[in-house]
């Protein structure tokens, strides 16, 4: 039995895969903890998982600081390349700086055999290096790596931000240690990620889908009442009210009069009236829902895109910020869908795009191909097996094939 610790940022998309990997490790008899700033994570952990909450001897100021990081990313309207600057300067660097002491404290106390840190929680890598603990990295937003290929100077700028933080905490190295040289698990398949030469420590394990059942009411009878195309529209959890209001106004105009059922993930109170063919809920049981659907409209968050593809569904991607533009680029490149520009698209473009992916079977066929590549990559079980191997200090010979 080994002891594992996951270090996660307070971002749903980055946390969910660790919950699945952790559940498998616990099931196989290991001890697993999660280091986080978010007290609410406790309720989401798999049975037997330990919450290692970062808590400082809190002056009110520090407590407020901790809380502000929990939803910082939702507070500003960001778009395009600008958002990368915002992400590093105002979210990731302060978040990691703030978390470092807490992470270091937990690692000393918990004494894990293996640290698994998110690629955006570089404070975890720094703390592990300083305590000479082996660490591996899980890349939950693989498109972020792709930027080094498409916009090398932007990537270099990102790396420099990380290097400066490393130096602050005593790691003097001219390269970023965010991605572990031991093992960096990229949570997608090589087919979806695209051509890019990566060092052998990078291993494509496929998406790690969080299979945990979420207790959410859903009117299945209403969904299946009509034999007509069914689509899901979701732009995830990280964008604010104004973004959403503009977006869903266009969704209503696009699909309100159409012969299709539209499941929308949104606060129903956003509009007084929604069209009759819409089912609007703040949360939906997305994984249970996807097998009944024909297509998805989303913002290009890595998890929703992977969940859509692993169900072999085509999609329309409307990226808003961060790495989503690159995720959308991949969806288009592999032929599994179409992309629209978030600021420019109008209702008729959305309708045309959705009709096109529903009618032309080539999109569905491409999505099915990516689905197969995801299944072949191994997913959660493969990830857990790799973690076990590295926890006993007998690293596998890895290949990137």
């Amino acid at each position, binding site marked *: 039995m080994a002891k594992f610790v996951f270090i996660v940022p307070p971002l749903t998309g980055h946390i969910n895969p660790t919950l699945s990997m952790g559940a498998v490790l616990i099931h196989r008899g290991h001890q697993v903890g999660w280091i986080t700033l978010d007290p609410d994570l406790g309720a989401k952990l798999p049975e037997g998982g330990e919450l290692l909450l970062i808590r400082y001897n809190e002056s009110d100021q520090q407590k407020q600081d901790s809380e502000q990081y929990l939803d910082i990313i939702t507070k500003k309207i960001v778009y395009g*390349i*600008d958002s990368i600057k915002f992400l590093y300067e105002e979210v990731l660097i302060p978040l990691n700086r703030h978390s470092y002491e807490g992470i270091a404290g937990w690692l000393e106390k918990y004494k894990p055999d293996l640290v698994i840190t998110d690629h955006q929680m570089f404070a975890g890598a720094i703390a592990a290096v300083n305590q000479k603990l082996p660490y591996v990295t899980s890349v939950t937003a693989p498109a972020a790596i792709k930027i080094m290929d498409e916009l090398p*100077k932007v990537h270099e700028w990102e790396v420099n931000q990380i290097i400066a933080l490393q130096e602050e905490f005593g790691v003097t190295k001219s390269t970023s240690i965010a991605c572990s040289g031991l093992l960096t698990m990229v949570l997608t398949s090589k087919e979806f990620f695209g051509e890019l030469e990566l060092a052998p420590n990078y291993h494509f394990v496929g998406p790690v889908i969080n299979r945990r059942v979420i207790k959410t009411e859903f009117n299945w009878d209403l969904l299946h009442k009509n034999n007509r195309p069914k689509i899901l529209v979701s732009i995830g959890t990280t964008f604010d009210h104004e973004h959403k209001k503009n977006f869903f106004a266009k969704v209503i105009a696009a699909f309100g009069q159409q012969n299709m059922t539209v499941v929308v993930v949104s606060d129903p109170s956003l509009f007084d009236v929604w069209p009759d063919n819409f089912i609007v809920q703040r949360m939906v049981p997305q994984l249970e829902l996807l097998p009944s659907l024909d297509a998805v409209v989303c913002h290009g968050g890595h998890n929703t895109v992977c969940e859509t593809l692993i169900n072999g569904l085509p999609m329309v991607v409307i990226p808003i910020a961060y790495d989503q533009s690159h995720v959308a680029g991949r969806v288009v490149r592999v032929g599994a869908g179409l992309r629209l520009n978030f600021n420019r698209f109008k209702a008729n473009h959305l309708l045309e795009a959705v009709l096109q992916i529903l009618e032309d079977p080539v999109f569905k066929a491409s999505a099915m191909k990516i689905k197969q590549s995801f299944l072949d990559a191994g997913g959660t079980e493969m990830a857990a097996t790799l973690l076990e191997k590295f926890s006993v200090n007998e690293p596998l010979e890895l290949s990137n094939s």
Partner: protein
Amino acid sequence: MDAIVKTSKLNNDEIFGLMKQFITEVIGEEFVEEMDITPQSSFTKDLEMDSIEIVSFSEKIKAHFGEQIDFTGWLSAMDLDQLINLNLEMIINYIQECQSSK
């Protein structure tokens, strides 16, 4: 020789026209009709192009000018702030520079 090179040189207006054509190809004609594209238009703020759109735009320039200019190299040497502020005029000037150094 000089004469041949000169005829292939584009003036500022011609380069600007070409840029507009590439932008149209990347983002679609009907969007461009509603925009007031000028040499001062920035890709991120004014034209609201995201990073993948900027990458496809640069691929079109590369395809058009080929070996004549190292556009991808020039673009990839830009840091984040330069990229955020990138406008058409900067590209026009760069292409002019390459043309006059040939």
